[in-house]
Every structure is written in C-alpha cells, then in structure tokens.
C-alpha cells in the first residue's frame, strides 16, 4: 500500500474522461504489478422523497393541490374540462339559481358549464366538446387550481 499513496489524479481524470467519451462503465489497466481501475455507474434510482417520513405525507395531504384528489383519469370515462386558471368555481350564475349544467345534460361545445372567479372577475368556463355530462368533479364555491378537472363529458 505504501506506494499506492501517491495517486496520479490527472491519470484518473484522464481515464474518467475516457469513460465519458467511450460510454464505458469500467476501465482496468494493469502493468507490472501496478494496476488502476476506474468505474462509473450511470443509473437512475428511486426518488428519495417517495420514501419520505410520515410528516411529509401528512403535509402532502394538507396540500391536495399537489396530488389531485380526483380519482386517476384512466379509471373514469369521458373527456375532462380542466380549470384554465386559479380561482373559485361557481356552478350557477348566482346563489340559488339553477346550475349551468346537471348530470346527464347534453351540452354543446362552447356552452358555459361554470364560472371561475379570480380577482373579483367571473370567467365563464366553456365546454370543449359536445356531449353528455358524466360527472361534475367540483362543488359550488370551492377553490380550484390550474389544470384541475372540473367536469367529465362523454
């Protein structure tokens, strides 16, 4: 070991560069009892946060926006209409009035399905296709974030 102390870093760097250049994962070079081996393992491994403590998990719960509560799309039929902005949804033109759409309604592309209030302005959300209303995924007067699914159309 005594003479293994003086390591030539440049040589190692040179070999490391060769690893890059050639895409090799390992180079071993030996001469007269002296040998050097460099290796680099390029590989992805599982997200460290996926295995996070209970604490984090509870926080993710308290942050439903980060992990939408709505069941995974592939489990549901229909095409979602998603929120184009952050705001508060209103299902009807005014409190007490009939909602824009009800389950089972046949609606046409361009129909208003609900309003999203942002900074005191009410923005109509319009149907992106014609079809039957399969599911309404949000409650009246509740907040939504960008990209959140609002309605499912057949």
């Amino acid at each position, binding site marked *: 070991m005594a003479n293994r102390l003086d390591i030539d870093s440049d040589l190692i760097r040179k070999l490391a560069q060769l690893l890059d250049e050639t895409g090799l994962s390992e180079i071993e070079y030996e001469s007269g009892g002296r040998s050097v081996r460099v290796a680099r393992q390029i590989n992805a491994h599982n997200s460290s946060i996926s295995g996070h403590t209970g604490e984090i998990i509870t926080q993710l719960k308290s942050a439903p926006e*980060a992990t939408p509560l709505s069941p995974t799309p592939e489990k549901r039929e229909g095409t979602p209409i998603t929120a184009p902005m*952050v705001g508060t949804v209103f299902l009807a033109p005014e409190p007490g009035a009939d909602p824009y759409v009800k389950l089972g309604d046949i609606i046409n592309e361009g129909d208003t399905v609900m309003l999203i209030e942002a900074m005191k302005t009410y923005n109509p959300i319009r149907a992106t296709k014609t079809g039957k209303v399969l599911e309404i995924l949000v409650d009246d007067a509740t907040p939504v974030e960008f990209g959140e699914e609002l309605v499912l159309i057949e």
Partner: protein
Amino acid sequence: MFEKVLIANRGEIALRIHRACREMGIATVAVHSTADADAMHVRLADESICLGPPSAKDSYLNIPAIVSAATIVGANAVHPGYGFLSEDAGFASILEEHGFTFIGPKPEHIALMGDKVAAKEVLEKFGVPVVPGSNGAVESPEEARAVSRKLGYPVLIKAAGGGGGRGMQVVRQPSDMESAYTIARTEAKASFRNDTVYIEKFLETPRHIEVQVFADSHGSAVHLGERDCSLQRRHQKILEEARSPALTETERNKIGEIASGAIKQLGYENAGTIEFLYEDGNFYFIEMNTRLQVEHPVTEMITGVDMVREQIRVADGLPLSFAQDNISFNGHAIECRITAEDPETFAPSPGKITDYHPPGGLSVRVDSGLYSGYEVPAYYDSLVSKLIVHGQSRNECLMRLRRSLEEYVIGGIRTTIPLHEKILANPDFLNGEYDIHWLERFVSDELT
C-alpha cells in the same frame, strides 16, 4: 404575527423562505408551475397551489393567479423571494390593495430604485458616492461626447431602465461614440421599452462590493456589512464572500454608515442592498436592490442574523431585533453558486438527479431544493444549490470549502462544482486578488 405566508417563488429561495416561516410557526403556501409540482418546497409546504403552465409569465409572473391563490388560501402575506416579481412595484401595490402584506419595501421605493437615473440622483443627495457621469439622460451623440470629454475616457453608456448588463457600451475614444451611442439606445429600447441612456466614467479594474442594509417602520436603519461579489461571469455572480478581502476596517465602517444613513433618510423599510464598484479606495454607487439577494447567507453566517426571519418580522410592523451596536462580524463566509451547467462550456444541463449527497459537518450550510430523483426543469434559472461555508479565518473557510466541494455529490446532471474547485486552487483567488473582470479571464484561460 402572520399566520400564513404565500411564497411567490421557486427553487432554493422558496425552500429558504418555507424554512424561516416554519421556524416562526407560520403556515406556508407554495404556488408553482406544472413543471415544479414535485419541487422540494412544494412537498414541504403546508399547502400548495398550481398557478399555471411552465412558462414563467403564465405562472411565477402571473399576478392575477398569485392574488387568487392568496385569496383562496387566506394568506396574510406574500414573500416574493428574488427575481420574478420581487422588484415589481405594481405587484406590491396590487397585493396591498387586496389586503395582503408584501414582504419587502414600499412600492414607491421599489419603483424609485427601478429607475437607475432617479435612484442615483436621490442616493447621491443622501450622501452616497456615485460614479461621475452625465446628470441624467443624454439626448444625443454630441452631448455624449461633451459629457465624456469632461469625465475623461473610457466611459460607459448605460440604459436608464435597465440592468444586468444589457444596453451597456464602453467607449474608449470620441470617434467610437456615434455608433456606440446608437447601439446602446437600440438595445435599451429592445430590452426595456425605454431608450433613455446616460453616461458614466468607466472603471478599469473595480471590485463589486455591496452593502446589506435593513430598516424597519419605526425609523431605525442598520447595515450588516459588505459582501464582495467581484467573481462574475456575464454579469452573473458565481461566488460571494464576506468580509471583502480588499476593504480596510475604516472603509468598511464608513461605507456601511453611509448606506444605512441613506436609507434612513429615504424612509426605506425591510432588507435592501446598495451595490458599489470599488477601486483605489473609492466607492461608486451602481444600483440598489430592493429585495433579498441570492447571496444573503454569507451575511447571515458572519452576523448570525436570520435575514428572512427579520424580513417577515419587519413586514409585520415589528422593530428590528437588533441595533447597529448588536451587529458584529464573526469570521469569514463564502458562498458558491452551483448551477446546472457544464463547468467548461456553461451549456445548460437540466435533467434527473440520479445521486444526491450534500456535504455536512461543522460550519457547512447547503441551501438547495435538489434531491435524488428530482428532475431539474429546463424552464428556469440554472441555480440548483448554494454551498455556504464559514470559518474563523478566511483560510480556514477556504480549506473547509474545498473539502465540502470534494464531498458534494450531484449525479445525473453537469454542475459547476468543478469550476469552483478550480477557482479554489487559484493563487490569485486564494490571495483575494481579483476584480470584476478576473473570472471572465480565468474561464477563458481555462478553456484555451
């Protein structure tokens, strides 16, 4: 005290703000783009809201979305971090109109310092030394030549609305003035929708020295000493240290008192930084940043002041938790900005982090949102980590920084860690002998 703070930023600074809030018992709200849904601060925040698609203008610069988010979650205050909306006076006013506290200075001061010409005039009035130059806008090449004759060449043409080096032109002789002047105006127009330009004496080998100031709503103003940020590439700071190896104790105290005195007269509130060029013992005002700086940790390390905590307290109307006499400077601190770039070509290197292991131990601090498995998005600034190290002496700090860089593992992307290791091996840097042009030369020498 605020019960809930919305963090209108991303990356390491969003995490920094989350931590300060958490330690004050304040609930945090992370607002983010779709690209940042898995960001560390989003995972740690008490609540998070997606603002919009990756593009900053649709998310982190989307004022209506941010205000809606603040309304929905019932936040008391908004911390803007740095960059994005942090120096947008309009954003600050809109928040106030909607009843949210903007954690930062008053809109009028943000606006004032946003106008480089006005800022210079005001601060000069309050005793801040400035670069000799045209008094305000220069309207024609002829006027430019006349001004420059008085100042003596070389001179620098700068955009009044600008910053970050865009719209700047160095002129070394009268004959170059005509074209340089025209280019400067055109660039200024393009970059800032404002083609007003002014002229300053050009300094050949200055250092970038900035003074950290802090003021509260009760009329007290304090300085937290200087930071030496001369190591820059393309006007981007790469490494910062405090205290500056170049200043004498007398110079330090003098410029510090001038800075705190000026913001006191100005009636400024919260944290701010007054940037100077320093050459031959003289300071020349560059600009004032009305926000938290990327490099604030070096000041925290030598003063012991938690600056984000202090910002929140002051924004809530509390007096500063320290007077000038309570501030002493202990040891030395250096920050390395680690970016997701090739250390030689500086080509951006976003992507998945396959391995992540930060250095630890005594007096080593890492501010980073990186984690193993995280995907560095390509849409934003390439800063991915700040390594800040403290030592009783500058030399101890340098030795500790070197071993920390050795230990730091960031796999899957290229980073500027090797660049920092090279800088730490350079005698000029080790001796503290560098100016704002040093790094550009160093980098180009390294490449050839």
